[in-house]
């Protein structure tokens, strides 16, 4: 049994380690902050799984604000089929995303799930992806029960619409295989070619020479036909589109090297260039792999589907029934419980609706909706369950309609041309001209030498170093950004950031602190008893303002409130013991409004005396003004807000003169605003956070989504910036701009190496040993240079 007590000393919850501020539940000699935490403890205790608590200190997640998710819809056969990864009719494997995983205790508990239910055979956690794979017996336990079990031990699996498509996608390992094969062949070819490096005269008997030559050919076949295939494919596709990318000269170089080497070895004219070719392919594959390192847990492709529930609770003849969201129709009546998302525009039928639109607008203060009014899709109900009637289809709702815009159906092709491809155009033409030129020069006198020079030019000019400089520079920059809480979708985003001319900001949640409406109390000082009483009074009310104030009062304990009543338009009142409490509008609390429109104010009156006022200010992010002024020296700034212009006065002082401030913008207006800027050749960087910015983020050249919690939702974008690092934005942009300087210098270095090589090649004097040394050397120099310079610059800029 548990008992409720008020204790002066703050106890910590055995499960989650949070202060047991509001109430303390004691059970089996341990303290818990809420019933939820206690329940989890009891489940683990019963099953002898308390090692969970000894591996880490208080490893649990607070169950206080966890909504009880229901997984009844997982019984739907079609849905189940989409979610499970494998089933043979008896045993099933399923993959769940569990964002709550955060420490070794989590891993331990989740991997011991078989002790909780005998139907579960085994479970495995992937910590980096925050996923758990569960292998269970169909006869013993249902999929829905597995999900409920996870939720009961504090790890509710996250299931949403987009999972239906993505969760089954197998990871593509072909790049790993290619690198492995290339590495193997490269090492062995080097070994076999080594005797040739030692001296001009062959130290080998001819029989060995022949054997090594043929072995080299055999080893180079997998490299040429398997590992290097992607270069040929890419070159072929780009040529077909009448365009020369960096892979064209690379493919040309590799092909010439291979053909010439095979001919030389077969004709016993020389050892060939197989070693250079193997080294080159291997290095370039490693470069591409390095560039494509991705963040496991972040998703940059989310649309509203990843946020909406998979199923809704349908009310039919007053009976509850769980149906997949896809079957929801106009006219259906649905039940929306606490913390559930409204999945289509609807009309409120009954219940008290406090809708939190923070995922849509970034505004975290819930809105009170009256009966008969419309609640929009994407809002989250806070409070008791409400009944609503659907008036629009899921895909036609005010919010989701945005995704019908053509910008979302357009395939995501590169928004801009990478610098390296611009260069490769001229580079390729120049190389071919030199090759043909030197062939023509030797042709009249020496046919053999002409052929030699022609192929040698193409071999030595193979832009390996050139092709490596940009992946390594950008790859390093992406990593530096990652350390600073700025996560890019891919390396190409660095280049698009560097080209930015215009910044467009969203207001709520982007430049303001989400959920951080700052509560300030002004007036007569309140004693501890009064604070407790007020906190209790405010927690009685479901008004959003009251909730925010109650949360801000740091008082322990609780007072019984009697005679509580809520007077619409005036405020709330009640009695705590002998204390008469009133809170609300100025007149109601017996004072005059100080007329500050900037903030919402709640006046407090105790025992008939006016005491003071709680004001909720919109809190802008730290260092916002300085940041905007730094940016304005180089870029044009704009603000597009979905809110009304009530904050305009403050914002004009925050934003530098000349910035464009727009209010009352719908999601579509925001998109059009960005589009309009782009028509006049501006490169737009959009910073937003909610679903209502999704269109503008997608339309912009670079869309950055600001997020306070990386596990939370963020709309489709090119980059995610942690809210706490917001003021670093100008620095990060400046850093991205430096990338082009570094790439530029590394290009010069690689071109110098090329010039040296070419000077030998045009004379037909290129020896295999020389090529085998020069080509990897130039690549390594370039890689070392860009790595060092990015690191040095990061230290200098304090990133």
């Amino acid at each position, binding site marked *: 049994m548990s008992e409720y007590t008020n204790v002066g000393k703050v*106890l910590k919850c055995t499960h989650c380690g949070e202060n047991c501020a509001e109430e303390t539940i004691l059970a089996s000699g341990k303290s818990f902050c809420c019933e939820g935490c206690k329940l989890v403890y009891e489940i683990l205790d019963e099953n002898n799984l308390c*090692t969970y608590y000894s591996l880490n200190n208080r490893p649990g997640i607070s169950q206080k604000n966890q909504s009880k998710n229901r997984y009844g819809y997982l019984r739907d056969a079609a849905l189940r089929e989409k979610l499970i990864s494998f089933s043979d009719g008896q045993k099933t494997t399923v993959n769940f995303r569990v964002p709550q995983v955060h420490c*070794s205790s989590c*891993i331990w508990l989740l991997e011991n799930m078989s002790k909780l239910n005998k139907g579960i055979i085994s479970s495995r956690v992937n*910590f980096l992806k925050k996923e758990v794979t569960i292998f269970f017996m169909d006869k013993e336990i249902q999929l829905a029960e597995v999900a409920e079990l996870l939720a009961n031990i504090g790890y509710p699996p996250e299931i949403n619409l987009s999972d239906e498509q993505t969760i089954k996608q197998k990871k593509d*390992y072909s790049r790993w*295989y290619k690198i*492995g094969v290339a590495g*193997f062949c490269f090492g062995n070819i080097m070994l076999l070619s080594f005797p040739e490096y030692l001296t001009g005269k062959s130290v080998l008997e001819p029989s060995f020479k022949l054997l090594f030559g043929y072995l080299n050919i055999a080893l180079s076949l997998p490299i040429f036909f398997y590992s290097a295939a992607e270069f040929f494919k890419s070159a072929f596709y780009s040529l077909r589109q009448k365009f020369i990318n960096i892979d064209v000269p690379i493919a040309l170089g590799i092909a010439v090297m291979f053909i010439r080497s095979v001919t030389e070895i077969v004709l016993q004219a020389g050892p060939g260039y197989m070693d250079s070719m193997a080294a080159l392919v291997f290095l370039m594959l490693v470069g591409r792999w390095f560039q494509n390192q991705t963040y496991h847990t972040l998703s940059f492709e989310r649309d509203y589907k990843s946020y909406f529930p998979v199923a809704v609770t349908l009310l039919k003849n007053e009976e509850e029934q769980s149906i997949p969201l896809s079957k929801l129709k106009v006219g259906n009546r649905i039940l929306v419980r606490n913390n559930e998302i409204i999945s289509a525009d609807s009309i409120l039928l009954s219940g008290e609706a406090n809708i939190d639109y923070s995922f849509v607008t970034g505004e975290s203060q819930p809105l009170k909706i009256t009966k008969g009014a419309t609640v929009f899709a994407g809002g989250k109900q806070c409070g008791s369950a409400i009944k609503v009637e659907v008036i629009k289809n899921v895909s036609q709702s005010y919010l989701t309609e945005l995704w019908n815009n053509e910008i979302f159906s357009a395939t995501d092709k590169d928004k801009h041309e990478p610098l390296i491809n611009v260069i490769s155009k001229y580079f390729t033409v120049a190389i071919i001209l030199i090759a043909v030129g030197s062939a023509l020069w030797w042709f009249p006198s020496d046919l053999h030498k002409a052929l030699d020079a022609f192929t040698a030019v193409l071999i030595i000019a193979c832009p390996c170093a050139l092709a490596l400089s940009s992946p390594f520079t950008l790859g390093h920059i992406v990593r530096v950004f990652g350390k600073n809480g700025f996560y890019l979708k891919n390396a190409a985003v660095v280049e698009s950031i560097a080209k930015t001319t215009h910044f467009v900001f969203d207001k709520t949640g982007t430049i303001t602190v989400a959920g951080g409406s700052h509560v300030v109390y002004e007036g007569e000082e309140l004693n501890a008893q009064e604070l407790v009483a007020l906190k209790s009074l405010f927690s009685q009310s479901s008004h959003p303002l009251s909730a925010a104030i109650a949360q801000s009062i740091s008082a322990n304990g609780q007072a019984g409130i009697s005679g509580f009543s809520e007077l619409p338009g005036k405020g709330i009142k009640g009695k705590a013991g002998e204390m008469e409490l009133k809170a609300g509008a100025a007149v109601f609390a017996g004072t005059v409004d100080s007329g500050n429109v900037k903030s919402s104010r709640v006046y407090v009156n105790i025992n008939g005396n006016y005491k003071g006022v709680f004001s909720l200010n919109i809190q802008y992010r730290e260092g916002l003004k300085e940041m905007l002024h730094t940016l304005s020296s180089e870029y044009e700034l704009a603000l597009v807000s979905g809110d009304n212009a009530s904050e305009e006065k403050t914002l004009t002082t925050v934003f530098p003169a000349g910035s464009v401030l727009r209010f009352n913008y719908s999601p579509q207006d925001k998109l059009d605003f960005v589009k309009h800027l782009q028509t006049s050749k501006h490169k737009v960087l959009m910073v937003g956070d909610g679903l209502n910015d999704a269109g503008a983020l997608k339309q912009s050249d670079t869309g950055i989504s600001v997020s306070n919690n990386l596990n939370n939702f963020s709309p489709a974008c090119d980059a995610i910036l942690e809210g706490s690092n917001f003021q670093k934005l100008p620095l990060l942009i400046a850093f991205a701009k430096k990338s082009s300087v570094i790439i530029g210098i590394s290009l010069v270095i690689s071109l110098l190496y090329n010039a040296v090589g070419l000077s030998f090649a045009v004379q037909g004097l290129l020896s295999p040993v020389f090529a085998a040394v020069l080509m990897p050397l130039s690549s390594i120099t370039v890689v070392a240079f860009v790595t060092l310079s990015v690191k040095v610059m990061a230290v200098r800029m304090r990133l």
Partner: protein
Amino acid sequence: MSAIFLLIGISLLVAVGFLVAFLWAVKTNQYEDDYTPSVRILFNDTPPNNNETTKPE
């Protein structure tokens, strides 16, 4: 010198062995998650008794 023929053959065979081992490791998802196994190996096989888990407040 003919021993070299044999040695080259053996060295290639060993190298192929490593290549196959690498490909197998990739195929069995061992590169999927390079963090969790390092934690997993430190867990005891048998959970200790309940009274041992009592923690100081």
